[in-house]
């Protein structure tokens, strides 16, 4: 438990720093984007308690404004039954409940505002108020300049650190060995202090500033939380130097030492050497402390009830529809094509349309790394990237090699068309601006008034075009210099492919063509591009994984091993890879040359169906774009999404996971006849072949952190976009290729920008598993620490019986039978287009009847 306890123990700096680091955001450099629970620091609390504690630390909002809930109630998106349910769950007394029912509908403009918090009202702020010193405004610019120049990955032309130099040494060098000393370390006594080394500097400053050892930890925490973005970044680089392309030697301790020295230097400069210490503050008794007394969770009951009622209303829409799904008996005919999509909620609608267009296509869902974890370095990539969820640590490196010699390319810096990327300033800049600047008038006007439909420079984005061959088969077992194995052995391949096929339940009835469809997203002028790609591939396009999977599954040797293990892939079955571009609604197909004639014909049929499905999908997406065409014309809609992905002024190339709400683990027959409005992560899973829950445990251990992480990151970024989220994209400035900040001297922004979450309904994920309760219990027993997500309700977990369709909700105390109102049924319709007409908000789950296949 990372809360500091008041004890008589001596103050141990390293231990305290490790403790404090739990409170920092864990968002790495911007080239990768990994969704995670924003409030991982309080995940050991039940959801509401955790949120309340976090609010008291970070000074953030915990719920939506009460009028949002009230207006949802008026619109019918929160039902009275759900309010009753939520009140019952809160366990409050009968009379309190009566009173609560009245309170819920009273106006309260302040109910959602953040509470008194350590970050905003702690000892440090009280002290600074007392001294009348705008410390953050003095210290932060100095610190951020040093940090960003030290960690910079390629923007500045002169690099700050020398080879292998640590942050502390670097600062020391600039301070002690320069004719112009680093401001504000120019004062003699500060320079003297710096010679003592970081640990002594911290202790010395704490003695001078804080005084009381009991308060040291809190002061350090408040210093770190005054710029959570940079603190978190430093911690990530400290614990995982590989997250940077050019490694840097830095630690939180060095950061704190420099920052405290800087603070002390400013205080000394402004107030002289005798100033009031924190332990001498007259109002000390009234200031919240970093201890259990302040951090007791206090949950505003009415907000909790409103929030749970909203969630339960949304959740019961799905549960209602699931309960009515028919039970399938025997296995149907073998489909023409099977297509394995990513679990991603954005594929939910595409799969629906694909099956509507051609009912002989069966779709399946799996996390988009398709069970194959590796580091990948494409032909055009500067460095290898991990292509798997962060929980997995890959051991294999896969590189791509060209199949045919490629034309020598020019150095892009010499290309005049790219000239604006290097902000020349001296003589060359003079010549360029004198001569070519005016060309940019035309270029600018052109890109604003006639946005292109094709992406600029798309050829160099490796995920879109596969120009080479993947080195998958390992030739020898010697690891390379970094300790990675170059490729997989046949048995490793068989293990990965077999594991994947088993977990999605595809072990028999193989179609002649099995498509493996990854996804990625194109956007321009978007530093958060990684957050738009595949979450299961750590924010990369999943194409390499799909190609690898198809190659492995086509390999004779792999199939032979699989056959021994009971998965008999017929010789007539071919696997092929493709990638869905989620922002442009386009599909790219890879390695078609490896297909034989029969499967080629099947592929053509598939491509035909995909083409239609993508256009319909584009239209369904357009209903979210206020400035987009609200038309029944699919072509027009598709044209619009193409434009969107390629225009430099479009901050919303797509809405990503904005709709995410459900995760369903089960057979496609459970969801095939449902309209789920792109809200569901769909994981295929066959309850019949998993009697001991082993497969389920494996499926859940990927689905919970990936889908839950996405869901909670969206949720908290939506609830408080300026503390948990990154605020609006519009003023963002790219800092050192590490992240974005507001303006030139801002803190790094973590979380999601408002343009990604604005239409999101901040409800927790409902994870439904199609399986018997006893098997689920067995699977949960194997889940380990991930069980925390379910026990503390960070994810709602329900089970749908494969035979009876009886629903049960997981509670820490035991399974709770779900009773939905008897007289209400899920709305029905015959096809998707009818449902989406004129709708601009989320749509309840519909059942398809009649004409639908």
């Amino acid at each position, binding site marked *: 438990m990372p809360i500091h306890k008041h004890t008589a123990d001596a103050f141990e700096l390293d231990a305290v720093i490790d403790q404090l680091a739990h409170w920092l955001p864990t968002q790495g450099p911007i080239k990768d984007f990994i969704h995670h629970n924003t409030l991982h620091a309080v995940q050991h609390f039940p959801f509401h308690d955790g949120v309340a504690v976090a609010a008291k630390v970070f000074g953030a909002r915990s719920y939506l404004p009460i009028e949002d809930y009230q207006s949802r109630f008026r619109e019918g998106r929160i039902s009275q039954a759900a309010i009753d349910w939520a009140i019952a769950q809160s366990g409050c007394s009968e009379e309190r409940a009566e009173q609560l029912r009245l309170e819920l509908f009273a106006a309260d403009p302040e109910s959602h505002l953040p509470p008194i918090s350590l970050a905003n009202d702690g000892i440090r702020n009280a002290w600074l108020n007392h001294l009348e010193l705008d410390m953050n405004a003095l210290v932060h610019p100095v610190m951020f300049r040093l940090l960003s120049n030290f960690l910079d990955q390629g923007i500045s032309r002169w*690099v700050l650190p020398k080879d292998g130099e640590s942050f502390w040494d670097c600062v020391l060098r600039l301070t002690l060995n320069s004719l112009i000393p680093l401001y504000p370390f120019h004062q003699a006594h500060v320079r003297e202090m710096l010679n003592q080394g970081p640990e002594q500097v911290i202790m010395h400053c704490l003695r001078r500033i804080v005084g009381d050892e009991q308060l040291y930890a809190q002061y350090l925490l408040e210093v770190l939380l005054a710029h959570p973005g940079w603190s978190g970044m430093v911690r990530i680089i400290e614990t995982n130097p590989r997250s940077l392309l050019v490694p840097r030697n830095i630690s939180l301790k060095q950061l704190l030492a420099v920052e405290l020295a800087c603070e002390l230097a400013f205080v000394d400069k402004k107030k002289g050497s005798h100033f009031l210490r924190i332990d001498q503050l007259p109002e000390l008794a009234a200031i919240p402390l970093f201890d259990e007394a302040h951090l007791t969770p206090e949950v505003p009951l009415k907000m909790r009830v409103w929030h749970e009622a909203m969630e339960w209303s949304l959740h019961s829409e799905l549960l209602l529809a699931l309960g009515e799904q028919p039970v399938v008996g025997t296995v149907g005919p073998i489909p023409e094509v099977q297509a394995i999509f990513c679990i991603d909620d954005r594929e939910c609608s595409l799969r629906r349309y694909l099956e509507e267009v051609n009912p002989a296509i069966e779709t399946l869902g799996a996390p988009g790394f398709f069970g194959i974890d590796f580091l990948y370095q494409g032909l055009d990539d500067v460095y290898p990237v991990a292509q798997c969820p962060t929980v997995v640590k890959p051991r294999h490196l896969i590189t791509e090699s060209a199949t045919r010699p490629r034309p020598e390319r020019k150095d892009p810096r010499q290309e005049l068309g790219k000239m604006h990327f290097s902000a020349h300033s001296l003589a060359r800049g003079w010549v360029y601006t004198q001569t070519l600047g005016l060309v940019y008038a035309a270029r600018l006007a052109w890109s604003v008034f006639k946005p292109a439909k094709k992406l600029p420079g798309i050829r160099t984005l490796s995920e879109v075009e596969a120009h080479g061959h993947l080195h998958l088969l390992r030739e020898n077992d010697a690891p390379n210099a970094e300790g990675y194995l170059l490729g997989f052995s046949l048995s490793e391949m068989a293990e990965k492919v077999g594991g994947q096929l088993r977990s999605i339940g595809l072990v028999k009835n193989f179609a002649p063509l099995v498509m493996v469809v990854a996804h990625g997203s194109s956007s321009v*002028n978007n530093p958060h591009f990684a957050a738009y790609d595949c979450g299961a591939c750590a924010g990369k396009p999943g194409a390499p994984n799909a190609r690898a999977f198809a190659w492995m599954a086509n390999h004779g040797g792999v199939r032979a091993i699989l056959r021994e293990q009971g998965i008999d892939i017929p010789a007539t079955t071919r696997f092929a890879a493709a990638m869905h571009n989620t922002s442009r609604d386009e599909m790219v197909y890879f390695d078609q040359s490896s297909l034989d004639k029969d499967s080629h014909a099947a592929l053509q049929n598939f491509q035909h169906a995909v083409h239609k499905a993508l256009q319909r999908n584009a239209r369904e997406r357009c209903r979210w774009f206020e400035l987009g065409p609200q038309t029944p014309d699919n072509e027009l809609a598709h044209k619009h999404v193409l434009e969107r992905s390629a225009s430099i002024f479009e901050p919303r190339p797509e809405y990503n996971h904005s709709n995410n709400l459900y995760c369903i683990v089960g057979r496609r027959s459970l969801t095939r006849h449902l309209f789920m409005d792109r809200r569901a992560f769909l994981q295929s899973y066959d309850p019949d072949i998993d009697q001991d829950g082993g497969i389920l445990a494996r499926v859940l251990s990927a689905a919970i952190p990936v889908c839950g992480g996405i869901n909670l990151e969206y949720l908290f970024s939506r609830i408080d976009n300026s503390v948990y989220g990154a605020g609006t994209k519009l003023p963002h400035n790219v800092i050192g290729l590490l992240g974005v900040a507001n303006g030139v001297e801002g803190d790094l922004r973590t979380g999601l920008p408002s343009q990604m979450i604005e239409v999101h309904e901040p409800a927790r994920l409902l994870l439904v598993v199609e399986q018997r309760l006893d098997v689920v219990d067995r699977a949960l027993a194997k889940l380990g620490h991930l069980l925390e997500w379910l026990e503390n309700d960070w994810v709602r977990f329900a089970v749908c019986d494969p035979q009876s369709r009886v629903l049960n909700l997981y509670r820490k105390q035991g399974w709770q039978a779900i009773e939905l109102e008897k007289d209400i049924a899920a709305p029905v319709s015959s096809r998707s287009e009818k449902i989406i007409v004129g709708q601009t908000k989320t749509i309840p789950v519909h059942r398809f009847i009649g004409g639908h296949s």
Partner: protein
Amino acid sequence: MNILLLACLLLPLLGFLLIFLGDGSERKVARIVSWITRVKGVCVIGLLSMWAASGFKSFEYQWFQLYQHDDYQFPVLFYLDGVGAAYLFCVWAIFSIIVKYCRVYMHRDAGYQRFFQTIFAFAFGLNIIVLSGSIDILFAGWEVVGISSFLLIAFYRHRWQPVRNALRAYTIYRFCDVGLLMGAWMSHLLFHESQHFSQMGSLFNNYVNNPLNYAVLSLLSALIILAASGKSAQFPFCFWLPRAMEGPTPSSAIFYGALSIHLGVFLLLRTMPIWSFHFLPRLIVFAIGLLTVIIASLSEKTQSNIKGQVAYASIAQVGFMFIELALGLETLALLHFMSNAFLRCYQLLVSPSIVAHLLRVEGAVNSDFYIKDRQKLQYLPTSLRDVLPDVLQNTLYVFALQEGQLEILVRSILWDPLKRLGAAMGRVNAWVKWFTAVALLIWLLIAVNNISPVAEVYLSIPVSVLMVLVSTSAFSQKHSPFKIWNSVAMSSFLAALAVWLMVPNAIFDELMFLSGIVPSWLLGLWVLSRLLKNEHFAESSFRYRAFAQTRPGMSLLLFISFLGMVGFPITPAFLGEDLLLSHAAGRHPWFALGITIAFVVNGIALARMFLRLSMGRAVRAEVREFHVG
């Protein structure tokens, strides 16, 4: 042509008003914006082609005489020549592109209406400057641009950092406005009614008979150069520009990439006859340009954020323009301006692409992206590393990192003395204040009774000293918004009093001045007392109070009264300020210094107070919660 010119000028104002009075729905705002820009385009092209058809002759148009009193004239005067035409075209082109860009870019932003309002106000100010026919009119535009910059930098007002940086930029603007304000006054003094830009050139053609002396002319030149280098972020004011990149990217692009930063160049082009007349001011412009080029290009090397890098690159190019101007290469500078404006605008707009560009495009081949090329991992270029000793290398790096120490320099020279003076004033005890008041009264009586003709002159000295002191005490006051507000008002009254003592027959002009100040003052007092009724301001004077979020109406009123108090051209006080200066300083030039210092300091003190009150993020005052379990 006159009509077209007025249309060019007033269309942005019309746009501003329509948006301001509209209900703020996004579609309506967008429709207004797109129509105004289209009509404006027609007007601009019409105007420019008529001007071309007339053989590119310089064109002057006096709309009306705003004010006339004795020999003092304030004509509303417009002027169009090659320089103006180039600027007019660029302003329109970039403005149209940016608003089109923002139509989608700003979509769903909470401040959609506010953004377009401000950007139209900005365009209005720019057009005034570009088409102005005299320094007075130019100054009016200058003020509009200053305030709208301030508002756009602080666009995201719930965060303290944009707010602070807005204040920083405003401070520099304000300080450099001294140059222009005094310049305006001096041009009255020097040229009397002929302060028209159109006649300025010819004024010096027959210099032989010209009575102007070098000293005065040099002073005027220095003031103009000060104003120009402040607005264009030239030496020693480079540091504010990168920090002003706090608003939405397109607003940074249009202000600090494209247009606002080139206004200094425009001012220099316009006043070329004045300052290029003599060798010394030319040398100053050249030196400023050169120093800026050196410092900005060094600073650019160590900028690790993309907008800062573009900003310094742009500053360096403007430095070149200054050099070109000093060498008399006007056409080259004009061309340079246009190219630089479009290029930097584009660079800023696509600046978010840098991540993808560096990681995926440039890194893809074996280029200088240093991840592949380990050589580049070293700090400083090889040439420097081999030649310089360690200590000089470090020095160079620190110099570049701290952007030439300019901010530290400016702060210690300009602001610290003022703060110290103000703090000292704050410590003066009540006794002394009473004593001063009594003494003042006695002086007044003497003056009123005309006991001695000397009195009016010499009595005004202590009054104006007092005025400056009161202003500085407002500047260093932190605990009470009322004190700041009253001190500023007091300072304005003292200014009027001092002028009255000097020029008793200017009573009408003083009344005009006060007719702007007094209502603003009273309105402000009322708003402040309403806002701060239940607040204990002094207890936590450092908190941002977020009234713009919690009480937007009151906050707007406060802003309006703030504008009135600082002599923004919405009240007669703006004109009055100019009149006071010309009256008083006409006889006693030393007075100009005092009144301008007071003017600058008042503005800063009030802006700071306004920010503390209105900006920031609302927090729940008390915690009313219910325990569960």
